[in-house]
Every structure is written in structure tokens, then in C-alpha cells.
């Protein structure tokens, strides 16, 4: 009983938009709101990062507070009364968005992020008036020195997510804020090429960018976000088993992403998972069975001819020398089902336990 009472005491009760809700100490207003299905807009927030409270889009009203507070960085208290979408709050959010758009390039028709851009989504949701203060798009030089990471500083809203994910989640720190005021950009130390400042090419900065400032270079102009099919699967590289979202279009793999809040990787990927799946599209793939001809060359043939050749030789060797004349190598890159069938074939059909694979590698 005592334990149950203690647990009950540890649960807080607050009111959000008139609805009573339970929360655990340490949770933020943003987490509690999202758990109850209330969408609070954020630009500088990523669940993988510590709360930052910079973009001011997630401002909410808390009864008794001196002014609006950022939901992402405010811990819940017992008895809190919160309003997330009052007229005043909507006006504040709209004001922030108007300021952001006053120097944003608005090149959405050719921006890779279009359709998957928080700024675009919120500008629409909050019915932003274009440029009440005029429109002066940024005009920084575009750097383009990494094979996979495309940079466009003019689309950057300085939310600092790339800076923080590289420093805090990756433990590296390739990115930082450079210059001051209107001239502030995100850049590498001394403006050096990314690969010279310890970049491990994971593309985590792309994954967290809420706009089109950082994107997948190799899939530019391949397909719009809404034109691709998305399939949830597992990475074929190392044994961590990260969940990948494969974006495909017209029979080709276009790009790879991961979802925050899902999979053992929680939205994180390394260079191989994010940029290494293009082998699927390769023209070097074998697309026909091959057999060795009389001159000793491998030549393309039909499945029937290839299987005939296997049947004849396997049967001949089996009848002459039995199962012990066979050996089979399974594969650490094939599925469980395929390895199961192969070992069953080896043991039950060929008649040998000579099966192994490079498990020791």
C-alpha cells in the first residue's frame, strides 16, 4: 500500500486546454501535450536533443506565469493550467514565422525539403501574411564540398539542431554558429571543408534539419517527398539492426531516412545506412544466371540451363562420393528464412553437416 501511495504521489495532474491529464515528474509540457494528441509547433526541437527553447514557436500560456513559456523547455508541475492555442499564442507564433520568412529564399518549388518542411507546414497552418516587413532573401555563398551533404545556408533558420546533433549525439562538433546578427551562419571551424573537421559523414545533420538547408546531395531532383513510397526495413550492413525507411520511386531507391522514436536507432543512422544503399540500383548487378562454357568463360544463360548444370553435377558427385563430398557456405547477409532453408537443404538433401559461414568475421 505504501509503495502504491508513493507511486501515486509521483504522478502529477495538470490541465491542458481544459482537459485534466496525468504526467510524470521531469516531463516537459511538450511531451505531455504530444502524448495527449495536442500538436505544438516546434522548429528547434528534436527528441534526440536536449530542450533548447530558441525558436519560440512552442510558446504556451501557463496560468500564473509572467508571460508565455516555451513548452519544450518547461517541466510540468502539479496543478499547472496550460493553454496551447489561444489567440494570443497563435498571434505570437505567426509573428515568429513572419520574421523567419522575411529573409527566407522561398525557393520551395526547387527545394528538396518541400513537402517535408516544418517552416512550410507552419506558415500554411498559421496563415502567414507574406512579408509585412518586406522581403530580403539571404544571399550567402553556397558551399558544396561533401559528396553526400548538400548545404544551402540561405535556407537556414539558425535553429542550431545540426550544431547540437553533431556535438551532443555524435560527440564530434563539426558545426558552429559563425559571425553575428544578420550575418550569422552555420559553418565549420575556419570555413574548412567538412571532411577536414572530423566529419564522419553520418548525415545526422541532414536528418535533423527542419528546412532545406541541409539535404541529401545524391538524391537531389530525383523525386519529391510525396512522390516516393516509403518502406520500413532493417539495414543490411552491421549487426546493430537499425531501422531504415527506404524511399523508392519508379523502381529505384531514391534516399534513406530513419524515424525518430522508432527502431533501435531512434532516428539515428551512420554513413553506411544513410548513404550506402545505392548498390541496389547498381548497373553492375548480376541479372542472369551464368555458366562456364567450353573455353572456360562465364556466359549468361537461362535459369533452366543453370539449374540443369547444378542438378547433373550435384547428382553425379552425390552418387559417386555421397554427402561428405559437399560443403555449403551460408550467409550473414541473407535472411533467417534463407539460411534456414539452406541448412535444411545441406543436411536433409545433400546429406552433410559441412555448412559454415564467416560468423567469425
Amino acid at each position: 500500500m505504501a509503495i502504491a501511495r508513493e507511486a501515486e504521489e509521483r504522478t502529477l495532474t495538470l490541465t491542458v486546454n481544459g482537459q485534466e491529464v496525468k504526467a510524470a515528474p521531469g516531463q516537459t509540457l511538450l511531451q505531455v501535450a504530444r502524448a495527449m494528441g495536442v500538436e505544438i509547433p516546434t522548429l528547434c526541437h528534436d527528441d534526440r536533443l536536449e530542450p533548447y527553447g530558441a525558436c519560440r514557436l512552442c510558446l504556451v500560456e501557463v496560468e500564473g506565469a509572467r508571460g508565455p513559456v516555451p513548452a519544450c523547455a518547461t517541466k510540468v508541475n502539479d496543478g499547472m493550467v496550460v493553454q496551447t492555442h489561444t489567440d494570443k499564442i497563435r498571434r505570437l507564433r505567426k509573428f515568429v514565422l513572419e520574421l523567419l520568412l522575411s529573409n527566407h529564399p522561398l525557393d520551395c518549388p526547387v527545394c528538396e525539403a518541400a513537402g517535408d518542411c516544418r517552416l512550410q507546414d507552419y506558415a500554411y497552418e498559421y496563415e502567414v501574411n507574406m512579408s509585412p516587413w518586406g522581403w530580403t532573401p539571404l544571399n550567402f555563398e553556397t558551399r558544396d564540398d561533401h559528396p553526400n551533404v548538400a548545404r544551402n545556408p540561405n535556407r537556414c533558420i539558425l535553429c542550431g539542431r545540426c550544431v547540437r546533433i553533431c556535438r551532443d549525439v555524435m560527440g564530434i562538433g563539426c558545426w558552429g554558429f559563425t559571425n553575428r546578427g544578420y550575418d550569422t551562419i552555420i559553418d565549420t571551424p575556419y570555413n574548412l571543408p567538412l571532411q577536414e573537421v572530423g566529419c564522419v559523414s553520418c548525415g545526422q545533420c541532414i536528418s535533423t534539419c527542419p528546412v532545406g538547408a541541409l539535404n541529401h546531395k545524391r538524391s537531389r531532383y530525383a523525386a519529391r517527398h510525396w512522390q516516393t513510397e516509403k518502406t520500413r526495413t532493417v539495414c543490411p550492413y552491421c549487426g546493430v539492426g537499425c531501422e531504415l525507411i527506404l524511399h523508392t520511386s519508379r523502381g529505384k531507391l531514391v534516399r534513406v531516412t530513419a524515424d525518430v522514436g522508432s527502431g533501435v536507432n531512434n532516428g539515428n543512422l551512420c554513413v553506411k545506412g544513410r548513404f550506402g544503399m545505392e548498390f541496389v540500383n547498381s548497373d553492375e548487378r548480376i541479372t542472369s544466371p551464368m555458366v562456364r562454357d567450353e573455353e572456360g568463360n562465364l556466359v549468361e544463360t537461362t535459369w533452366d540451363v543453370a539449374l540443369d548444370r547444378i542438378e547433373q553435377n550435384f547428382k553425379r558427385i552425390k552418387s559417386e562420393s555421397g554427402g561428405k563430398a559437399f560443403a555449403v557456405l551460408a550467409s550473414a547477409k541473407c535472411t533467417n528464412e534463407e539460411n534456414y532453408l539452406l541448412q535444411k537443404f545441406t543436411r536433409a538433401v545433400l546429406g552433410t553437416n559441412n555448412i559454415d559461414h564467416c560468423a567469425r568475421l
Partner: protein
Amino acid sequence: MTNSINDIHEAEVIFIIGSNTTEAHPVLALEVVKALREGKTLIVADPRRIDLARKAHLHLRLRPGTNVALLKGMMRHIVDMGWEDKGFIAERTDNYEAFRESLNHMTVEEAAAITGVPAADIRKAAELYAMAGAANIIYAMGITQHHTGTNNVLSVANLAMLTGNIGRPGTGVNPLRGQSNVQGACDMGGLPDIFTGYQKVDNPELIAKMEAAWGVTLEDRVKGKTIMEITRAVDEGEIRALYIMGENPILSDPDQKHVEESLKKVEFLVVQDIFLTETAEYADVVLPATTSAEKDGTFTNTERRIQRVRKALEPREGTLPDWRIVQLVANRMGAGWDYRSPEHIMQEVAAVTPQYGGVTYERLEVLPDARFEQTDVCGLQWPCPTEEHPGTPILHTQQFARGRGLFSALEYAAPDEGVDEEYPFTLTTGRELVHYHTGTMSRQAPGLDALVPTGRLEINPEDARRLGIEHGGLVQVTSRRGSIQPVAWVTDRVSPDWCSCPSTTRRRRPTG
């Protein structure tokens, strides 16, 4: 892994030995980075100054091949100071006295002399690990790929049991598996001595069980041959036919030259793969398979989690998924199989494999209970014996697989081959971040090949200067087995007299 990936940061002390985690398992390494941010302590034992060694509180830069001595030195100090977990040892383990006696054969000072690690650092590491409320050990090929690999692993297990660091959150012995489904390929019986689920092939009861399930009489009732034994048996003419699915042993197995000669020699070679690999070039018949993006199935990851692989693209024209190809070949041999889908195969796996007994495709689609704080992860961690069983995130919480944990009394043995006048360098092998295994997939991905096009040899600046080797220049590396030509990377990650290169560097430099 005895524990789970999202459990790593629960440890107060993380001890990484023989794993270059940030390069070989980059996303898992983020859990270590997270732990460091939370103020946890990191000990790294590695001959190289790898990235995590730079972040570690203590870097034990041991000589290659001296792991047993290092671990014994640590355990000797723990026992000398009385820091062992006496309750855990008494309740859950066997053979402690013999193990305890074996520690008398090595002092911390002797361990320091063998490993090159200062005695004070060995004592410090022992103290950090033993005094932590929860400490885990993470290891990989740096422990297993030695001729003393088994003793290295047993030493790691000794250390965990000695301090009771097993069976609880934030503890455990956590080997990291290197390939997407190497865990699954082992679980499925892709090894010479076991059926699925580690059921021994020479156990009469299990033979009878599989014969009943498969409706056959099994011809071979003893252990089969390992890869190395297969290569030798080909040389001796005992093995005449070889069927290889999705492997490239020329690059993945030790002693390239020997493997290549065996593949030339074998009477009939079938290779099934997605690219014409170095190995496929020797084949009599090549069968075109699909990539994992073009088929359904499951992979089992390093934390024993069975996860769904889903088809995102139709198979490239002319190719077939491996399971279909195996079935075609089996039916040519009279098997009469009619597997209609990977799911259909998994039903049979679950029926014959105790650890996978509760696995169904339906369950793999659904998120489990709110067992995790932040991340909901699909998939089931084996053992999962029944459909009601939730899976097992942490092994050995109550008892070990054999009941009580078995301490091993071990002696240190020096590496099999040492340096001499003719071969004055020690070459250690490793992985590189950007490429994977034999490069069959990663070298066909332009986004990766553009970053690091060739295998690199890490060499110390002092040695490079002495030998006139320039950063980025081509070098010839010759061992007692053969030669490779990697590109030099002059770096203090390696000490003088040691070099390191990816284990799968090609013998000839690839053109283009």
C-alpha cells in the same frame, strides 16, 4: 549481447575491449556517447588510439594479442583487494577455487610487462570496473579474432562473474556482431555442429526430432567441417562440390591465396550473389539473387532482436530472392518443397527452434508493451519460446544457460607468430567506417566510395618517416602469407612498429 542496446548507458562504467565501436557499430556507439554525456565512466582497452580511446577516462593501450594477461592482471588486483562479489560467486557460479588459484600465476606487474600497460592503469581499471554498481563489457573482433580467441572470451566472462556484473540492467558481456544477420545465420544453424537454435547435430534425440520434422533420414550424424577445414578438404580432394550463398570467402577468410587456390581446385562451384564477386569469378554456375531491399524476411541483430526485412522494390528483372533459388535447387535434387513465402518458412523455424518458438510475422509487426522510455522498438528478442512470451531483453537474470556460471582457469599464451628480422612489424586488422566487409555492397554505393575509395594502412609517423612513406602514397605490405597494396595513412592512432588495415583489403589494388 547478454543485454540490450538501449541498456548500455545504464552502466556506471563501460569497459570496451577489442571494439572500435564508432567505426564498426556507429549507431550503437551513440549509446556510449550518451553515457559519457550522462557522466558515466569509459575504459577502452585497444592497441590503437581509436576515437573512443580519445574520449575515454582510461585508455589501456595493450600490445596486440595480450588480452588474457590484461584481464588476469585486473582480476588479480580485484581479488587481492577483496572486491570480488562473494555472494554472486557462491550462489551462481562453479569452479571458482581453480580459477582463483590460476590468478596466482600472474601478478599485476607481470601483466604490465606483458601488455605494456602501466601497472597503475591496470589497477585503476580494475577498481573502476569492480567498484561500479553496474558495469558492462563491450567487445568485438579484437577479442575473438586471435588464436587465443576462446580464452579471451572466457576471460571476459570470468571478469563479469567475478564482480557479479551480469543479469542486471547496465551490466553484461556484450559481444557486438559485425554483420546484419550473422546472429541469425548462427541461430538458423548455418554452422557445422548445430541445427537451428544451437541444437547439436550429433545428439541422437535432436537428430530424431529433426528427422521427424523434415520427414527424412539424416545421412550425416556427426559434426561437419568449419570453413578452414572445408578449404583443406578441398585441397585433399575430399570435398568436390561447393555451394556458396552470399559470401565472398576470398576476401572474408584468412589467407586469401590459399582460399583462391581451393576455389580454383574444387570440381564444381556454385555461387549465388548480387554482384560478380571475386569468389563468383571462379564459379562453374552463378545464380543472380536479389538485395535485401527486394525481398521479405527477418534479420536478427546483435541484441538477439528478430526484426522484419520488408520488400521496398520488385526484384531486379532476372534475379530471384535467395530462398526461392535454394528451393529451386533443392527441388531439382528431389526435395519436393513448396514454401510459398518467407512467413511460411518462419512458421517451420518456430516449430523446430525453441528460442524462436513464439515468433510470428504478426507479432513482429506490433510494438511491444511500453518497456522502453523513449523508443518503441518492433521485433522480438530471443529466447521467445511461446506466443505468450514477451522476449528477453536481458539474459541470465536468474541463472545461466548451463545453470551455474562456470569460471575457467586460464593461462596467458603469447601470439602464435611474432615479429622477427624479416617481418619486423605487427599488423592488426580492423574495420573502416565507410566500407563494409568485403565491399560487395559498399563499393557499389557511390556515396560511400566517393568518401574512401581504397583500403588504408595506418602507420605511425615515425615509421613512415624512416621508411620514406608519404601520407596517401601506395605501399606494399607483405606478411608470411601474401601481399597487399593499400594506401598509407600516416597517423598516431598506431604506435611505432605496429600497423593496421581493414581485414578485407584486396590483394591487388582495385582499378578505377
